[in-house]
Structures are given as C-alpha cells and as structure tokens.
C-alpha cells in the first residue's frame, strides 16, 4: 500500500518540477557552506584509518596491493584513480574491493564479503591513497573496459521498473537542478560521485560505497536492485567515472553526504 502512495507522491512531484517551487525547502549557500565545513570532521575518516590498519595487518598494506597489481608504489595513487580497471590477472573489469578479495584468495585467507563494513573500510582506505589525483579512467585502454563502458551506458539509459525510469530520467542534463523531494537533482559528473564515494551518509550514520548508493536510488525509483560487484554495477561505476572525468574531478575520500 505504502509503495503505491509513494509512487503517487513521486509522480505529482515530478509534475510540479516546472517551477523552482522547492526553493523554500532547498538549503541556502550559507547552509551548504556549514555542511561543507563538516568535511573537516568526517566520522568516516575513522573508518578509513581502520581500513588501513586492517589492510596492513591482514594483507600487507598498500605495498602488497601495489605488488599484486604490478604497479610501483610511486605510481599507485594515479593507478587507483583509474578504477574500475581490467586486470589481466583476474580476467575481468573489477573494482578495488574485488582486487582486495583476489589478494585474500592468493594469500589463502578468508574472503571478506563485498557488502561488509570491513570491506567498505578497506576500499575507502585504498581509494583515499589517490586523494587529489584527477579521475583518469581510460575506457579505450582495452576491449574489456570498452565493453564495460558500453554496458554501463546502456544500464544508465535503460528505462525499467514500475515507473519506467532510467538513471538518465533524473540525472540527464535537462532535468538536473530540478527539485525532487526537496533535493535538487544532481549532475553525477559535476557532483563527482566517482570521486567522493565511499562517503559518510548522515542519514545512515555510516560509511557507504557508491554501489550501495546506487542500490538505494534504484529502490526508491522502483527499479530492481542490481547486486553489488556484478558486471552491471561495475559497468555503472565505469560510466559514472567517465562523467566525473569529463568535468575534471579529483578523488576526495571520504566524502560526506546527506
């Protein structure tokens, strides 16, 4: 029953999107500045620190990470800023978390679930090693990443689910900026989603990864949720990364979000 009511509210809100009627509910620049200041005291930093400790103790730290990928420690930050990548050793386009799992397998250790606090912390730590680097994903690098990009774009553009919505329905250039449920819809490139997630989510009081955020959005839009670590989710991350790259965005982990 609740679902039906929600969708009615959604539809009527969408219908009212013409005006900036939501202005009275939208935060002012001064408000946004206060929230931006909170970035300096982000609880997620504690999780990132913890992720570094777990990585060090259980897998040998970033030195082992670099060695596994056959990248010098000096080149590691820029390399991390290019994820998701096709890793020949693993025969797939993967995210940082999947590389960590592969390392665990190689070292004969128990695999940490992708959807676990421990993995989110480690993922955030490794990604934070690339802080300040420009997002440099190269979707022409090989046929695998090319295919992943194509799949990501299709996934982003395909209308599906109860309301026939695609990611693009709310995040395309002509819709962006309009207010939905009191929030202005963001341009995923301009918002540097690929650079600022994993992030601390204030409404969830925890560290969340980009794929998990996509799942939350899908649920609300009545799209069947895509599993974390699946081909399609990684492809979505690849596509989103190119959006941020096009706007010259940098890595800044951990982020801080509503």
């Amino acid at each position: 029953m609740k679902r039906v009511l929600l969708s009615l509210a959604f539809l009527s809100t969408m219908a009212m999107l013409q005006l900036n009627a939501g202005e009275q509910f939208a935060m002012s620049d001064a408000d946004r500045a206060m929230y931006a200041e909170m970035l300096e005291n982000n609880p997620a930093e504690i999780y990132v620190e913890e992720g570094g400790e777990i990585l060090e103790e259980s897998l040998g730290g970033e030195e082992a990470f670099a060695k596994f990928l056959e990248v010098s420690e000096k080149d590691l930050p820029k390399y991390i800023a290019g994820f998701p990548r096709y890793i020949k050793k693993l025969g797939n386009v993967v995210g940082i978390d999947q590389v960590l799992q592969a390392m665990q397998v190689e070292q004969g250790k128990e695999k940490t679930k992708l959807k676990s606090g421990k993995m989110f912390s480690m993922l955030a730590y490794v990604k934070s090693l690339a802080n300040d680097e420009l997002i440099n994903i190269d979707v022409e690098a090989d046929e695998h990443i090319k295919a992943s990009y194509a799949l990501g774009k299709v996934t982003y553009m395909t209308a599906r689910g109860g309301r026939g919505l695609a990611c693009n329905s709310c995040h395309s250039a002509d819709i962006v900026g309009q207010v939905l449920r009191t929030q202005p819809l963001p341009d995923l490139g301009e918002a540097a989603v690929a650079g600022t997630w994993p992030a601390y989510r204030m409404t969830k009081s925890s560290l969340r990864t980009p794929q998990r955020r996509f799942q939350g959005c899908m649920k609300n839009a009545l799209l069947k949720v895509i599993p974390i670590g699946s081909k399609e989710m990684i492809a979505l991350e690849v596509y989103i990364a190119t959006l941020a790259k096009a706007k010259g965005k940098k890595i800044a982990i951990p982020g801080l979000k509503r």
Partner: protein
Amino acid sequence: MKRRNFIKSICAVSAVAATITPSTLLAKDMPKGGNVLTYDAAVEAITGGKAVTDSDKIKLTVPEIAENGAVVPVKVNVESPMTDADYVKSIHVLSTKNGNARCADVMLTPLNGKGYFATRVKLGGTQDVVALIEMSDGSFLRAAKPVKVTIGGCG
C-alpha cells in the same frame, strides 16, 4: 511549586542512576529514552530561575534549513576576553521542541582561550536551537535561531 518538585524528582532519578554500577545495568534495565525535559524546565534547572538576557555577544551558527534532522551542525562563539576575571563559564546547547531539550552542557575555563564550542545535534523537527551562556560573573545570556528540518531526497 509544581515545577520545583518536578525538577527535584528528575534530580532524584538521576542521583539513583548515578549509583547504579555498570555491572548491574543490563540491556533491559537501561533507561528507555527517559531523559524527558522540556525547554522551560531545562532552562530553570540550569539558571535556577535567574534572569536570562538575549545578547548579540553570542554568535550562534546553525543552518536555516537542515536537509536531515539527524546531523545538524551547531557552532557557538561568545565574545569574551577569557581571563580569570572575565570568561565564559559554560555554554549550554538546547533545543525548544525535542523530548529532551538538552543537547550538551560545556564547562569552559580561561585556558580555552575563546568562548567557543561546536557539535552536531539531532532535531526531531523544525524548532529553535538555543545557546544559553553562563558568564563567570554569574549572569546568563541567550541566543536562539530557528532551524527548518526537511526530510526528503531519494535513496
């Protein structure tokens, strides 16, 4: 006075709570959101009924609109030389409509250098955030600002 008895009973409860040792506090015994205190009662408890003056010496910074009520940033800056003779003794952060009007009571000393405190609070809905200040001379000052709490967004 009804109010005084109410506060007395609250104090009695907290006195009892203070004597319960950790080992005897089982999950089922823990206070179930029992810290209910209205804004007026909280102010009374803090000031003992003394006069409170609105003052622009207090700079209270809160967002006009909080996009989520779980994490609302609050910053208090009180103009003061912070010397032994003249300093901010305490900063009390309160809200006018939360079930428990109190958020934090901060006792400062001249070593702080500035009459400053910042934190993040939960607001159960649109209401005022209040900074109640006690100066070293025993006087009480106040500043209040409204915060509109919106709960929206997707995901």
